């Protein structure tokens, strides 16, 4: 077993490098990903080592990047795209939702679309407008797309490789506030398949469920709750479409209570869908309604207010208290 400790940004870089070594049809496309190595340096040195025909510094045109990646996939490549920031994916929304997501279906299975779209997403970095959003529900609502989000360096390393190996388009949401968070990466054994949720902390009173950056916050909340005598289980959803309900339902059936936390607005969100499904499938196990803690149903606020907007451990604990009060 080879274990390295590294931040998520380096784990993603290592995962991309491994995927490119394993398959010469993998190529990277995006704005500033070559010479600069990406604004978050996720693709650092990859153009130097693989050349400018495998790591393309594209023109500044998101629809063009996704649309030409579709053509490259038709020509047998496996493009991995970087969208520079969450709020900039929308110029490409048409190509993603009306083309990329539907082409396999329209070809009745005769065509695969192995395209990965990497999107740094979420807040907590104090950035300006359009740079801190959580667009996951737009994509989970679109049949034909797979949507995943790692929360640890180990998952980042393995999930990016599995996303690239997928024959379907994958929206790969990178919690940018966790890029610099270090963790152990096992470079030899993949821990879990791409579409698996995972119990990351055991507990008996309340299940705390979430994805991406929020998993770290849930663990903080669980630690604080423990000091007050409440035992929280934490579940990392990992795959937002499809959702692996097994571990989530197992957890809820053992605790009887669930709180879902996410940065995204709550209305018609991933948390809404998971809450509804848990209530359908584990109704008699529940001691309280499933509660959601989320960003407000507003545009992401100016950065100086993001601490008020984004769920923190205290807001999660407030929901835990409400759940326990039933």
């Amino acid at each position: 077993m080879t274990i390295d400790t590294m931040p998520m940004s380096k784990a993603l870089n290592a995962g991309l490098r491994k995927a490119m070594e394993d398959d010469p049809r993998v190529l990277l496309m995006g704005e500033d990903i070559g010479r600069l190595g990406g604004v978050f340096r996720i693709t650092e040195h990859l153009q130097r080592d693989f050349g400018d025909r495998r790591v393309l510094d594209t023109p500044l045109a998101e629809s063009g990047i996704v649309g030409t990646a579709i053509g490259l996939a038709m020509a047998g490549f496996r493009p991995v795209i970087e969208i520079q920031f969450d709020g900039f994916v929308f110029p490409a929304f048409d190509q993603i939702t009306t083309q990329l997501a539907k082409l396999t279906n329209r070809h009745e299975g005769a065509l695969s679309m192995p395209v990965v779209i990497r999107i740094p997403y979420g807040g907590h970095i104090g950035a300006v407008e359009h740079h801190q959003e959580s667009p996951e529900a737009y994509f989970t609502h679109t049949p034909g797309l797979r949507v995943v989000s790692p929360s640890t360096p180990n998952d980042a390393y393995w999930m990016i490789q599995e996303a690239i190996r997928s024959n379907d388009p994958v929206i790969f949401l990178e919690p940018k506030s966790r890029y610099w968070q270090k963790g152990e990466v096992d470079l030899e054994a993949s821990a879990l398949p791409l579409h698996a949720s995972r119990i990351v902390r055991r507990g008996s009173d309340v299940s705390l469920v979430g994805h991406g950056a929020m998993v770290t916050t849930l663990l903080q909340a669980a630690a604080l709750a423990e000091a007050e005598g409440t035992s929280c289980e934490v579940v990392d959803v990992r795959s937002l479409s499809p959702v692996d309900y097994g571990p989530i339902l197992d957890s809820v059936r053992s605790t009887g209570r669930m709180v879902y936390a996410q940065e995204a607005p709550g209305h018609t969100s991933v948390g809404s869908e998971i809450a509804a499904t848990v209530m359908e499938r584990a109704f008699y196990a529940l001691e309280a309604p499933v509660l959601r803690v989320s960003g407000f149903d507003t545009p992401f606020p100016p950065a100086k207010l993001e601490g008020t907007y984004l769920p923190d451990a205290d807001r999660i604990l407030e929901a835990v208290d409400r759940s326990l009060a039933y």
Partner: protein
Amino acid sequence: MTPIEAPLVRVLADDGSYAPSADAERYLPLIDALTDAELEQFYRDMVVIRAIDTQATNLQRQGQLALWPPSRGQEAAQVGSARAARAHDTLFPSYREHVVTRIRGVDPLDIIRVMRGTSHGGWNPADARNGNTRIYTLVLGSQTLHAAGYAMGLSFDGRTGTGDVERDEAVVVYYGDGASSQGDVHEAMVFAASYDAPVLFFLQNNHWAISVPVETQSKVPLVGRGAGYGIPSVRVDGNDVLASYAVSRTLLDEARSGLGPRAIEAVTYRMGAHTTSDDPTKYRGSDEEQRWAQRDPIARMRAFLEGRGASASVFDDVDAEAADAAEDLRARAVTLTSPERSLIFDHVYSDPHPLMAEQKKWLNDYEASFEGSAS
């Protein structure tokens, strides 16, 4: 100068006489090299597809199809460009390129399948019988990016630009004057030019984006836009199959030789409706339609062939083939039935997907619950 009045490459006059425009000179050797059989094939292509197109329009009027986008009037632009492409070239149609697809081997019934609501695709582009022809794209301009990306892939794989035009591959992408306003077309030209992608942008300016005239899409002739991207561009008389053929052949060979993308504006006219859902009498005058009827690409080519001494039997033979093709299409179209309901779930993803499996099982169980009950 309005977009309609800029100079263009033309070989045949409106009356079908051989009268090359000044700009046509460099292309004439390609036309001189065409055999009688090839010239007659151009005519045959146009007449047969018009019969099929008319039949499909009738089928829609009779409630057999949900929609039909007629190609009447645009046959010469399409036949010229499609016959100019080499067999190994890949074609990306929009949704009106009925004769392009037919020339490449796609069964017109496969288009009918889409318009009758039994398929969202129609055919498999990977099947050799379909001649490297991608499926239709209804969202305007989307396919120009796919074509640019595909052409980039050809270039990255060394399948183009080796200097052997018999082997080097290229791409043709079709779009219209309305689509030319879409951002994706702009981005496709940027990408194609940036990567010297071997793609021919083939714009059919049929003058109307449903009810909006081309003058609302552009203040300059659309051919002028290519220059802004560094893409050599040529304007051709799109109702002249010979001009369309010769210019397309020349520019495609340039593109495949590694010289980068090329563009054509084929000036033509949609003689019918945009689709069977609109009514052209609400937005354009009959005087305009009559003026363009005088430039009908089929009548023009027929006059040219007659001038060369083609026998009456050639035309009789073509008419008979067209009638047969149209009748055959009707007979097969009306037998198309709903696909299996599993089609809903089976191809949303390439790899197994639990939600699809779950919902497919639910539907099957639900349907099965009615079995044996009184109807």
